[in-house]
């Protein structure tokens, strides 16, 4: 399968500073791909280079097989994007904003326009001026302009920003549907790590302008699968008991963390109980969410974990 987007050794130097250092990346049709990284890591710069707002210092970008630098119009006709907050013309109505973008892409019919408006649920307010819209409505209009010309690649910077929980869920389901049913390649960046976890198939972690890791979400979150936290008192005694089963034990504030197969947990519990230790709770140790993974990879630098 040919990648929908291909970055070959892309670097970007601004004011003699290397913002992006030799990034190579392939994203495929039908895939929801996440870009993850602390602020200033280079996520937005990467996105800006893909959508043609910035030029690469070296390296090349291919969109649907078209070289972005030498075949700009063809390459970009396959891309729909929202870069950062969707800044639309506030003195125009939502309708005129969409008409504006319709005129800039060949072959967008009025039926498609109506369809997209329906899709993002803006029917009732589409003829109102954008300055009267809420952030969520602007976000929807931003999504509408990105989808208008039925792009093969959809790039969204912080797509759920400003939406209510129902809206977030809606967008998430819709993006998944776009990828699965229409074979669109979706690239998202988000500071909502839990969102990424639910939305993406693969995730690239960017730090200091480099991609330090590209992995499937499923693999990503399973790294420390067999680590468990037990809330027990007294912890010291529990530590000694646990050591009889495994050497991978550490003391925590209100309990212990052990590393062992799930099947062995009942054995551990029965031993603890036999030793008159109170067991209050057993749960997977905390190093197993994407967020924690991410923090451990990036050293917990500057990341919003809201």
């Amino acid at each position, binding site marked *: 399968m040919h990648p929908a987007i291909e970055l070959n050794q892309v670097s970007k130097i601004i004011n003699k500073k290397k913002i992006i250092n030799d990034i190579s990346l392939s994203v495929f049709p039908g895939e929801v791909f996440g870009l993850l990284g602390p602020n200033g890591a280079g996520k937005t710069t990467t996105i800006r280079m893909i959508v043609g707002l910035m030029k690469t210092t070296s390296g090349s970008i291919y969109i649907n097989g078209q070289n972005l630098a030498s075949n*700009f119009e063809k390459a*970009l006709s396959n891309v729909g994007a929202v870069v950062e907050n969707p800044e639309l013309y506030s003195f*125009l109505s939502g309708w005129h904003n969409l008409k504006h973008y319709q005129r800039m892409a060949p072959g967008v019919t009025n039926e498609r326009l109506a369809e997209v408006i329906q899709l993002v649920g803006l029917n009732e307010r589409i003829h109102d001026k954008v300055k009267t819209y809420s952030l969520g409505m602007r976000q929807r209009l931003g999504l509408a302009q990105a989808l208008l010309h039925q792009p093969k690649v959809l790039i969204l910077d912080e797509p759920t920003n400003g939406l209510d929980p129902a809206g977030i869920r809606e967008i998430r389901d819709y993006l998944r549907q776009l990828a699965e049913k229409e074979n669109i390649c979706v690239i998202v960046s988000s500071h909502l790590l839990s969102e990424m976890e639910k939305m993406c198939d693969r995730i690239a972690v960017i730090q200091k302008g480099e991609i330090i890791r590209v992995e499937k979400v499923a693999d990503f979150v399973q790294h420390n699968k067999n680590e468990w936290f037990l809330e027990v008192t007294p912890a010291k005694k529990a530590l000694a008991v646990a050591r009889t089963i495994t050497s991978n034990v550490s003391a925590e504030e209100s309990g212990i963390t052990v590393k062992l197969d799930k099947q062995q947990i009942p054995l551990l519990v029965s031993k603890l109980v036999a030793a008159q230790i109170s067991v209050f709770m057993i749960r997977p140790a905390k190093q197993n969410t994407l967020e924690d993974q991410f923090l451990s990879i990036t050293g917990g630098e500057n990341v919003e974990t809201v």
Partner: protein
Amino acid sequence: MKQFKQLVHNEIMKIFRRTATKIMFLLLLTVVIISGLVFRFMIMDNTVDDAAAGENGVSINIAAENDELSPGEQRQLEEQLLLQQYYEAEGVEPLTAEHVWNFVIANADTLSFITMFTVIIAAGIVAGEHTQGTIKLLLIRPVKRWKILLSKWTATMLFSFTMLIALIAFSWIVGLLFFQFNIGPSRWIEVVQGEIRDWHAGYYALIEYGLNFVSVIIMTTFAFMIGTVFRNTSLAIGLSLVAMFTGGQIVYLLSQYDWIKYVLFANTNLIQYVYNNPMIEGMTMPFSITMLSVYFAVFLAIATITFSKRDVAE
């Protein structure tokens, strides 16, 4: 070509759907009405008196015999005499002060309002998209940047041209209303370099407005360039208006130097050639048109190159 038309359509929409644009047209109308009122009730009353005195040919003769006249006054009187003789010989009447065409022609100075309004539009048409952040969604379309920029320039010029048409229309209508539908004989007769020149007033007005509009184009293209390069609307408006209001004076002060003829503002006033009376000796219409074309091309080239090469980031 179809694509370019669509782009211009977009820019026109963005200009004309702004409240500020509507206000500009209202202001233009107001200016014409005020000018009409001033013309009708202040200037016209005075000229009527002058005309009455002038018709008395005897007074000219008496004055001409008087040796105490300065050379300038002398020439003025000779020209008046020439005109009188022409009127009598041809059996035509001069354009009266209350004639509509006279008002339209005299009103050509209001073109500087069009320059001002167009400078404001030209300065903001690129810079404004940067300040509002809308430039991002504009430039991620499958359209080359130079086309987008050129469409913005074209739309600005169309706006300016619309204003010009509106100004002439407003002047005509206001003229008709204030001057009792006077559309009688309409010839514009002047003495140019000692010779009589007899033009239809409409033709003269067209030449006058047309030549003034050339300087509107060049000044607004300058504002367009500054706005594009510095992404700052106020700076572009400020620089352009300061240049416009002081440029002519600076050129006048330095007019003894030969190199001054290569300065933009020595060439923007094309009307001077209609009177065969250029500010700097030896300058000609073709020379000025060449200079203006060069400046124009340089302004647009600078704007296009910076716009195409720019990395868009906050």
